[in-house]
């Protein structure tokens, strides 16, 4: 186990993009964890300086429409982005993994039905549905996690299914069956551990979409107003007409952080794919 991790790391470390991605993510995670120490002001405290104060030595990124420190808000905002992004991706991948395992292992009519359902879920327009959902249950950060979890599983399901299909023909599975292992044991003890790589890759790539979706919904105002998030900051900036005041610092840095964090996960995913798919190496 340890050896396989270290050899995977060796492969991964060859991908420059993967390393860059990992570093970006670690910086943001540090920012999220150490937010109370790092942020110079209380992010919620208004009128600590006049509204739309341009960046200066006291407020490195200026202040917003109610005189809150933008930098402090950005530091705290990393919490929501990372948490919602990872959770949403994890829920989706978990569902997808279960469905993919069942579908691939049992095959036949079960597989047929599950894969038809997967096709259906691929076509449901995610963003409008999430907005509708937010309309009914009220703006809430869990909307993205739930909606993304319930709609975001098809890619994972498809990949895990095809992997399961090939794994179940493998000799060690046959051996396990020969010594009398039951279906549950085979699926969870023998097949599941072999899909770890695909699962990780899936969580990472889905996180990119979840981060963007969360920011997008917050930008439309469909996120919890009690939590500071980057998308929310942009929403408030737009509502207060920040563009017309020339107050670019209230929305450009926040959006840049969304892009950068999403990019970090996209790069990390790229690096992981190289480890998983030896054929892509050396290209």
């Amino acid at each position, binding site marked *: 186990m340890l050896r396989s991790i270290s050899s995977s790391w060796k492969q991964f470390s060859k991908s420059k*993009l993967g390393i860059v991605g990992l570093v970006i993510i670690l910086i943001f995670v540090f920012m999220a964890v150490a937010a109370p120490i790092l942020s110079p002001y209380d992010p919620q405290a208004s009128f600590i300086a006049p509204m739309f104060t341009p960046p200066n030595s006291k407020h490195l990124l200026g202040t917003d429409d109610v005189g809150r420190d933008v930098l402090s808000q950005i530091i705290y905002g990393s919490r929501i982005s990372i948490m919602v992004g990872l959770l949403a991706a994890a829920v989706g991948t978990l569902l997808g993994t279960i469905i993919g395992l069942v579908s691939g292992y049992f095959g036949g009519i079960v597989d047929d039905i599950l894969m*038809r359902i997967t*096709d*259906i879920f691929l*076509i*449901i*327009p*995610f*963003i*409008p*549905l999430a*907005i*509708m*959902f*937010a*309309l*009914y*249950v009220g703006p809430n950060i869990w909307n993205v996690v739930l909606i993304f979890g319930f709609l975001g599983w098809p890619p994972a399901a498809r990949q895990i299914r095809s992997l399961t299909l090939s794994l179940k023909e493998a000799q060690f599975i046959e051996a396990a069956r020969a010594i009398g292992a039951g279906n549950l044991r085979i699926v969870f003890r023998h097949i599941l551990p072999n899909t770890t790589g695909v699962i990780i890759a899936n969580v990472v790539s889905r996180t*990119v979409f979840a981060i*963007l979706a969360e*920011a*997008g919904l917050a*930008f*439309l*105002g*469909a996120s919890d107003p009690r939590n500071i998030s980057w*998308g929310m900051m*942009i929403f408030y900036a*737009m509502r207060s007409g920040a*563009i*017309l005041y*020339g107050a*670019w610092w209230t*929305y*450009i840095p926040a*959006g*840049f952080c*969304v*892009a950068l964090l*999403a*990019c970090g*996960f*996209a*790069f990390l995913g*790229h690096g992981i794919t190289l480890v998983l798919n030896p054929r892509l190496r050396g*290209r």
Partner: protein
Amino acid sequence: MIGYLIKKLIQYFIVFFIILVVIFALPRLMPGNPADYLISSTTLTIGETSEILRMQLIERFGLNKSVTEQFMLFIANTFSGYLGVSWRYFPKEVFTLIMERLPWTMLIVVLSRIISLFLGYFVGIIAAWKRGGKMDITLQTLGLVSMSLPSFWVALVLLTIFAFYIPIFPLGGALEAGKIYKSIWDFISDALYHAALPVITLSIVTFFLDALIMRNTMLEILGEDFILTAEAKGLKDRTIMINHAARNAVLPFITGALMSFGLLVTGAIFVETAFSYPGIGMLLAESFFSRDFPTAQGILIITSLIFIVSNFLADIIYMWLDPRIRLMGSR
């Protein structure tokens, strides 16, 4: 062939039906009577009037009937094109409202699709040709970057630069307010002038991915036997690329493009909101704010239909162009 299409059609019909079930079920899964919910979320009512309105709403939406009857009514209404009445733009019908806004969304999405696909096609060919080269690596990196860009942020950056600091484009809207057009060309040029930034934004977000799809399709085709044959015949690299590989890549490229069309229509929600561009995306954002439930519902139904139709078109074109699928059913 017809069999294949019918099978697909049934599948899409089921998708649409499931979306309708979800839309129907959502308000009914919420605690309390939907009528109470509708009333509590409108700002129209105060005190005594709410009881009268409550009865009216119950009557109007048939909430005193059984759930099955309500569902039948909902399905019948939807299929006859009646999506209810907008609360915000009362008494306008949701369907009319959406049809007024849809052309604007279609304008920016179709234009950006054409630009992005056209450029992506050629850049993809070049990247595949010189695979592993500088341009190919750059394209792959930029593909990952553009995938991570929030479209609304790109929109705001462009807006700040090209409408505020260097005011060459308008700050928003689809047409200049109150302008009287002397000719149809006058109108078209004004519309295009306002559509420019939204179209550029959408193109930036999709271009690199389109190019990457083209590149990967090309690489797959380049690994096939007929390319080896062409090489063995001693054909020039250029001829192989353009006449053998690129032509065969058109098919998967176009179907991929069609399938992403629906995705882009929903992606336009953010871009339209950033540019205050009056398409259905902005309408959805507006209806969210004014808690205009019927309109939000209607847009979800219409965007699902657009999704389904573009997927179905992709299926048809794919089948039409690919003899393997075309002949499958006749056997």
